[in-house]
């Protein structure tokens, strides 16, 4: 869709990579339209690693997605042209892909209660955890603002919530890896580019290690983007 307010749209880049046999992934029409790349912003986003085990063809699809979300206009002083964020959203992409390619997968269960729990954790990520991270961090790296202790406290609080959700649970929405873990790992791993010590929360630390080692392709999909993000942060903080 186009926004008729004269502002150029920012970027979503989606790459589909074939890992083992099978057909390539058809990107959804929404993403096909976005072809312009704004280099400065690629790493200022969250990445999600999603994989699907297609039981029929026994192939794995690795989807490496870059998206930007909820970047507030006042942080985009690097390029005043790009003041309107694109309409990217985690939930659409993840659940659409899960519904389309992962029927019967435990990644996004169909049973209403199990699904509701995954949804709640996804909204927690986008509305609370990542929201507070962006709110604290982006004014510093983009706006040169000093660290706001009040906002830092809000982040610590959201990590405490996450720690509580993980009490007695292997994954964030129950005994199986779900979209919520993948979404949250992208957010929490971004904390590594900051001095926020999320590993002091024992359940979060344990869960972080578990997901990093059990989410297939994690190294390739998340680590690459995370390194790029760290690089960007370092270069901006030096100014």
């Amino acid at each position, binding site marked *: 869709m186009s926004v008729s307010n004269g502002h150029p749209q920012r970027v979503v880049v989606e790459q589909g990579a074939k890992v083992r046999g099978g057909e390539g992934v058809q990107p959804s029409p929404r993403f096909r339209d976005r072809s312009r790349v704004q280099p400065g912003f690629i790493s200022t986003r969250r990445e999600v690693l999603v994989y699907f085990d297609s039981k029929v063809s026994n192939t794995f699809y690795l989807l490496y997605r870059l998206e930007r979300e909820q970047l*507030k*206009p006042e942080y985009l002083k690097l390029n005043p042209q790009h003041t309107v964020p694109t309409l990217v959203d985690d939930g*659409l992409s993840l659940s659409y892909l899960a519904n389309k390619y992962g029927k019967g997968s435990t990644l996004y269960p169909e049973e209403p209660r199990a699904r509701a729990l995954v949804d709640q954790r996804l909204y927690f990520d986008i*509305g609370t955890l990542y929201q507070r991270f962006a709110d604290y961090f982006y004014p510093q790296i983009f706006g040169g603002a000093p660290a706001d202790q009040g906002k830092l406290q809000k982040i610590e609080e959201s990590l405490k919530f996450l720690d509580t959700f993980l009490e007695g649970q292997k994954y964030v929405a129950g005994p199986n890896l779900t979209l919520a873990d993948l979404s949250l790992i992208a957010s929490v791993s971004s904390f590594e580019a900051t001095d926020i010590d999320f590993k002091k929360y024992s359940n979060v630390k344990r869960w972080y290690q578990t997901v990093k080692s059990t989410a297939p392709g994690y190294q390739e999909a998340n680590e690459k983007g995370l390194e790029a993000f760290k690089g960007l942060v370092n270069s901006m903080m030096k100014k």
Partner: protein
Amino acid sequence: MSSESAVKLYHFPASGPSRGALLAARAIGVPVQIQTVNLFQKEQLKEDFLKINPQHCVPTLDDDGFVIWESRAIACYLADKYGQDEDDTLYPKDLKQRAVVNQRLYFDASSLYVKIRAICFPILFLGETEIKESLKKDLNSALEFLNEFLETGKWVAGHSLTIADTSIYASLSSILAVGWDISSFPNIQRWIKGCATIPGYAENEEGAKQFGEAVKKNLKTNIK
């Protein structure tokens, strides 16, 4: 579905998201037993409620022992579990239609409501008495998108009422009650008129009014 079995909703009428869950429930037609949690009096921090929801937020749903929060996760759950509309329109099962509804729900969560909250939370709870220009621009940018969504369909996700409409209307009605100017968003104005036909609309207006008054009380100057 037994008519005696109501779902329990921990609810605060002034809260936009709380009204979002309730409005969805009303549209779906599932009976709701409301348990008020007064956020202005910090009742969400009471021991009993913390046991139910350690994140201490409203709305929180208790469906016969199954507890879930996040207004939009609640709306999706209620639609999937109790939805009886023959045309399956409130939260369609069709993959692409559902994806659009989901996108609108996430838009509300991450782009629209969050900007309303950024304006109102400091005024309600942190002693702020005015609305910064940058926050006004933020919200109006989101409203431009919403206006665009409403260009091609009567409702936010297309031609039928969905739980995306109930979610977004609950959010928007909050800031409208504070006096926000939507004169430059003709599609939103048109859509709002349509929202008056949603079951539970009057109940939502009542809660939004409480919210608006609480905010206006602390604002030094009128928005307009």
